[in-house]
Every structure is written in structure tokens, then in C-alpha cells.
């Protein structure tokens, strides 16, 4: 049983150290598959370019190749960034033994508030700089507050996490839609959209945000007492409480962090689309995020958090989907193949950890 060998979070981390070799094999297994997929795509793109190079008007074949590679890289990183940002919060929540179904709804709320600010009367009263700052800060505060509400339900009202966040899942998207009566908000705001369309050093801004979130969360889990608390709560909540861990505060904080990260993801989606659509913003992302977490090696029973694993898991799922679609598998069938891949990956993870 998984519950019995995770007697406490501390012993879990110790055990992690003792079987470091296996842990490494697991991580490198995914890395190897990702590398194979990347190399395969290098060859595939080279193949298409060299076949169609006669039609390219400007530049040599090599330049065209690099342009295509760059494009493929950006497409994949852009699409994976929101899933990773949400997935990091999800990893922390799952590490405490909970789950957060409300992530998509929180994204929708945050994405709907930002245009309300810079399209509304505040936008005319203040300068663009102040407005854009507000348009980023206010949604993040609101989404953290929704996360706080999740944490309140879980710790104070003793709702089961899946039910507590289901409440927000159902109601939250409704709130986002009510804000504009369900209408789309279309806009053009280069300052705000730098969040997603900016290309410092040729790489999209949200990729920087993604890596910053991953690195900070990884430090949080491995180097701070907060991280140890998170793992110990997931390992054995009662033992953690008896050992003096402020269980309720830590659990609430984890949901707040998840809400905050969902706010960032929601803003990025809105900035990419130049429009906020409360119906589609973050729809079904909870499933993508949970799949990334599971493939990345964080068990859903809690007690372990592998932040880099979540990044790798999301990259793996995204690359598999990208490769399948780009070699001509229909999108619908790619869903089926992807499901099989996720099942296999989770099964292999499970075998190694037991």
C-alpha cells in the first residue's frame, strides 16, 4: 500500500535520498523520451524543409530550417507554459494530499477582470502604465482570494478538497461570465500583451515566467521548512499535526499559491488571444495539469512533490501531441493515443515507486 510506506513526510524524503538512483532513472527515462521526440522533430522538419526548399523565396535552406525550428520550439513552449504554471500549483496541492479542480475557473475569472480594468473608466483616468499594472495586480489578488476561499473550505469547513474545488469549478466560471454577461472582450493593448507576445532575447515572455515559477517552487519545496511541511502533511496529516506543523495554515497557503499561479496563467491566455473568453479560458486545463503532475512522478496520494517532474511531464505530453499531429494523425485520434501514453507513463512510474 502506498499509504503505509509513506508513514511520514520526513521518512519519505529520506527514502527518496536512499533510492536516488531509481529516482534519477525515472527522471532520465522521461528526459530520454523527450530527447528522442525532439531529435525526431529535428529530422522531420529538416525533411519537410529540404523537400519544399525550392519554393522558399528568401534565404538559404539552412536559414529556413532554423526559422522553422525556432517556430516549432516557440509553439511548443508557448502552449506548454500555461499548463506548467498551473501544474506547479497543482503539484503543491497534490503533495498535501489534496486536488484542485477549480484552476480553469480561476483562470477565467482572472482573464475576465484584466480587460475590465484597462477597457473601463480606470483606463481613461490614469496613464497606461498604472492601468496595466493594476490590470495585472488586481486579477492576481482576486485569484489568490479565490484560492484562499478554497483553502478556507478545505481547512476550516473540512470539505474534501475535490468537493470544495468542485464548488468553485461550477460557480467560478459562472462568476467570470456574469462579469461581462457572457460577452467576449476584444482588445489591443501592447503593454499588457507583452506578458505573452513579448520576445526578450527571442523567447516568449511566458517561457521566462514558466521557468521562474518552476525554479522558485522547486526551491520552496526543497530548501524551505514550508516545503517540508507540505510534504509531511501529504505523507501523514495527523502525524504532521502532532509534530507541530501548522497544518491548516500550510494547506491554505498551498491553495492560495495555486490560485495565484492560475491567475498568471489566465492573464497569459488572455494576452495571447487579444480577447477574454470566459467560456474557453482554461477549459479542461485541470485535466492537463493533473496528467502532467502524474506523468511527472508526483503520486496523487500526496507526500512527494517533483516540480521539475511536472515540467517534464507537461513537456512530454505536449511534445507527444505535437509530434502525432504534425506527422498527420488526426487531432481526435491523437487524443486517444495521448491517453494511452499517459496511462503507460503513470503505470511505469508506479512500478518503479512500489
Amino acid at each position, binding site marked *: 500500500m502506498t499509504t503505509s510506506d509513506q508513514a511520514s513526510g520526513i521518512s519519505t524524503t529520506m527514502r527518496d535520498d536512499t533510492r536516488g538512483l531509481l529516482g534519477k532513472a525515472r527522471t532520465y527515462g522521461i528526459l530520454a523520451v523527450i530527447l528522442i521526440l525532439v531529435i525526431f522533430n529535428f529530422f522531420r522538419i529538416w525533411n519537410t524543409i529540404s523537400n519544399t526548399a525550392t519554393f522558399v523565396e528568401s534565404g538559404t535552406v539552412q536559414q529556413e530550417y532554423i526559422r522553422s525550428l525556432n517556430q516549432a520550439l516557440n509553439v511548443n513552449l508557448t502552449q506548454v507554459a500555461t499548463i506548467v504554471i498551473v501544474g506547479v500549483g497543482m503539484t503543491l496541492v497534490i503533495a498535501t494530499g489534496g486536488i484542485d479542480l477549480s484552476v480553469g475557473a480561476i483562470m477565467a475569472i482572472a482573464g475576465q477582470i484584466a480587460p475590465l480594468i484597462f477597457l473601463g473608466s480606470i483606463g481613461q483616468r490614469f496613464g497606461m502604465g498604472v492601468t496595466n499594472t493594476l490590470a495585472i495586480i488586481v486579477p492576481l489578488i482576486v485569484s489568490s482570494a479565490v484560492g484562499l476561499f478554497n483553502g478556507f473550505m478545505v481547512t476550516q469547513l473540512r470539505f474534501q478538497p475535490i468537493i470544495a474545488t468542485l464548488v468553485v469549478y461550477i460557480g467560478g466560471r459562472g462568476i467570470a461570465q456574469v462579469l461581462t454577461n457572457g460577452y467576449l472582450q476584444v482588445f489591443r493593448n501592447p503593454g499588457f500583451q507583452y506578458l505573452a507576445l513579448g520576445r526578450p532575447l527571442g523567447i516568449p515572455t511566458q517561457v521566462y515566467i514558466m521557468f521562474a515559477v518552476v525554479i522558485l517552487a522547486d526551491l520552496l519545496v526543497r530548501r524551505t521548512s514550508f516545503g517540508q511541511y507540505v510534504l509531511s502533511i501529504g505523507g501523514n496529516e495527523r502525524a504532521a499535526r502532532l509534530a507541530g506543523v501548522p497544518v491548516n495554515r500550510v494547506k491554505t497557503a498551498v491553495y492560495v499559491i495555486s490560485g495565484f499561479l492560475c491567475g498568471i496563467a489566465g492573464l497569459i491566455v488572455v494576452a495571447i488571444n487579444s480577447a477574454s473568453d470566459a467560456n474557453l479560458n482554461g477549459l479542461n486545463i485541470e485535466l492537463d495539469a493533473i496528467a502532467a503532475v502524474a506523468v511527472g512522478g508526483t503520486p496523487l496520494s500526496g507526500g512527494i512533490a517533483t516540480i521539475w517532474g511536472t515540467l517534464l511531464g507537461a513537456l512530454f505530453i505536449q511534445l507527444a501531441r505535437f509530434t502525432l499531429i504534425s506527422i498527420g494523425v488526426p487531432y481526435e485520434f491523437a487524443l486517444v493515443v495521448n491517453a494511452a501514453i499517459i*496511462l503507460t507513463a503513470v503505470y511505469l512510474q508506479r512500478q518503479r515507486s512500489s
Partner: protein
Amino acid sequence: MAVTQANSTPKQGIRGFMSANLFQNQGVLVFVVLIVVFLAGSIIFGSTFYSGYNITTMLVFNSMFAFISLGMTFVIITGGIDLSVSSVAVLTSMLAAWFSRFGLLPAIFVPVIVGTLIGLFNGWTISKLGILPFIATLVTFMAARGLALIMPKIFGIYLANLFPNVSWSWVDYVADYSIVIDRSQNFQAIIGNFLGLPIPVWLILIAYTLGAVLLQYTRFGRVTLAIGGNEEAARLMGLPVTVTKTLVYAMSGALAGLAGVILASRSGTALPTEAVGWELQAISAVVVGGTLLTGGKGSVVSTLIGVLLLGLIFNLLNFINVGGFSLTVYWQAVVRGAFLFIVVLLQSSWLRRNR
């Protein structure tokens, strides 16, 4: 507490009996709420609400959720969860529409069999491979939806090329990826009336009666409860844990297949984008009925009452129209969330007080 009750006057004794046996069962409480809501709706909205047409439509619509929630109750009692039901329902509705041209029996049995097979697969991955129910059913959730999306393409393009002399016009794959029901086979008779009630309502009554008997009075039901209570203990006692868990998921899949049949026959066409979020609707109904997500406890009849209460309240929301202000679907979503919040809040405080 027990001592004071035993020494108390007969009047208090009856009250003690009432609170112990009647109201400790949350299903009864929810049933009372159900009656009150129904009466209130009838008084406020009059005959447009309690008209036979409205009630019948509501019952047929909610019969789909009732089937799914019945399977979900068993799954949740074992301590698991089944996210795949909505995708299974949509896939089986496509199959029902496709097989409707071969007659009534294939249009019912093929979807139910496919649903059972997907459920068996869930059960196999969960009980044999040891993958957590949330992930295992998430995988079939994705795969079944993908299969439903690709089905019109398979039937409309690939098979049409293979068998060019067969008429495939009833697969409308170009327009909207839907499959149209063959009306000449009278498939839609299964949502017709029988002895004054729609057939899905009869099916629900039969299914829930069987479900209640299965849970309370059979070995299978007792093992299901034992698994939810303590799986390791049940295994050590020599109970058939693996088989029972697999069968529970298979049952959930079969019932989702039945819901898919009704979905197809209600609308006349099967669309792969239908049935979004049904799994959460079913979980809500089970929770409102009072079954705990931790497993080990639960009641089939309470789930039916939960389904009816949720259906009734969402039906009432459509009637609200105060001075030109009616609830949009967006506000309805907010009210749904708030309603679930209140129910779970009352339920948890109720449990804590009775502990």
C-alpha cells in the same frame, strides 16, 4: 447521552428514536427538502411548473443523470471515482445513433456492451495495475471523447471508401460531425410513454430498486461497502476485492452506456460535443444525497433523491422571472455552485453534530 435517553420519559424516547433513526439518514432530510421545494415551486410558479409536460420533460432529462449517478454511487462507496462517465455516455450515444438503423435491440445493447467494456478496462487498470481511480478514469475520459470525435470520420470517410455501394448518408460528417438517428426504425420509442409514465422513468425505478437490493442484501453489495470501509482489511478477510472493484466500474460504464442511449434518442442526433461535465453533475448528486467521498458508506435511494433535488432546483431556476429579470445560464452556474456549497456545508456540520 445514551443513558439519559434510556432513562427519559416516553415522549423524549420517541424524539430520541426520531432523531436517531429518521433524521440521521440524510436521504430522508433531503427528501423533505425535495417535497418543500416542489410545493414552493408549485405555489410560486403555478401550473406552468407542475404541468405534466414540464415534470415529464424534467424527469426524462434527469433520468440520464440518474443512471450515471447510480453507477457513481457504487464507485464512490468503494472509495474511488469515475470521471469517464460523460465521455462514455457521449461515445455510446454516437454508437446508439449509428446502430439505430439496424433496429432497436442493437441500438440499445451495443452501446451498453461498449460502456461495460470501457468500465471493465477502468476496473482492470485500477484493481490490477494499481493506478489511482482519478488518473485511470481520466485516461478513459480523454480516450472515449477522442473516439467519439473520430467516429463520424471513421464511418463517414474511411468505411465509405471501403464500401462505396452502401449508403452512408445518415452519417453527417461534413456538416457538424454528428450522426443522425434512423427514424424509420422507431428507435425513439424508448423515450415514449408506458402506462402513463415515460419509459426512462420506469427504467430508473427498476434500476434503483435493483441497485438498492444489490447494495443492501447481496454479497456483492456488502463487499462493496467493505472495500470502501477498509480495503486492506477486506482483502485480508479474503473478500474478492479485485473482482468486485472491477465489476463496480463495469457497472458504472454500463449505466453510462444506457444514459448515452437515452441521450441519443432524446435529441435524434448524436453529437460528440454533448454531455460535457456530466461526471461532475453526478458527483454533485451523490454528495447531495449524503454519500461520503471517502467511501464505505452510502445509499442508493439517497442518490436518486439527490438527483431529483438538483434537477428540480435547476428546473425552477428557469422559471425565475422577477420584473423582467431572469437568471441567465451564467447566473445559474453561480447559483449551482452556491447551492452545492450550502448542501455540503450543512452536511458536514450535520455529521459533526451527530458524531
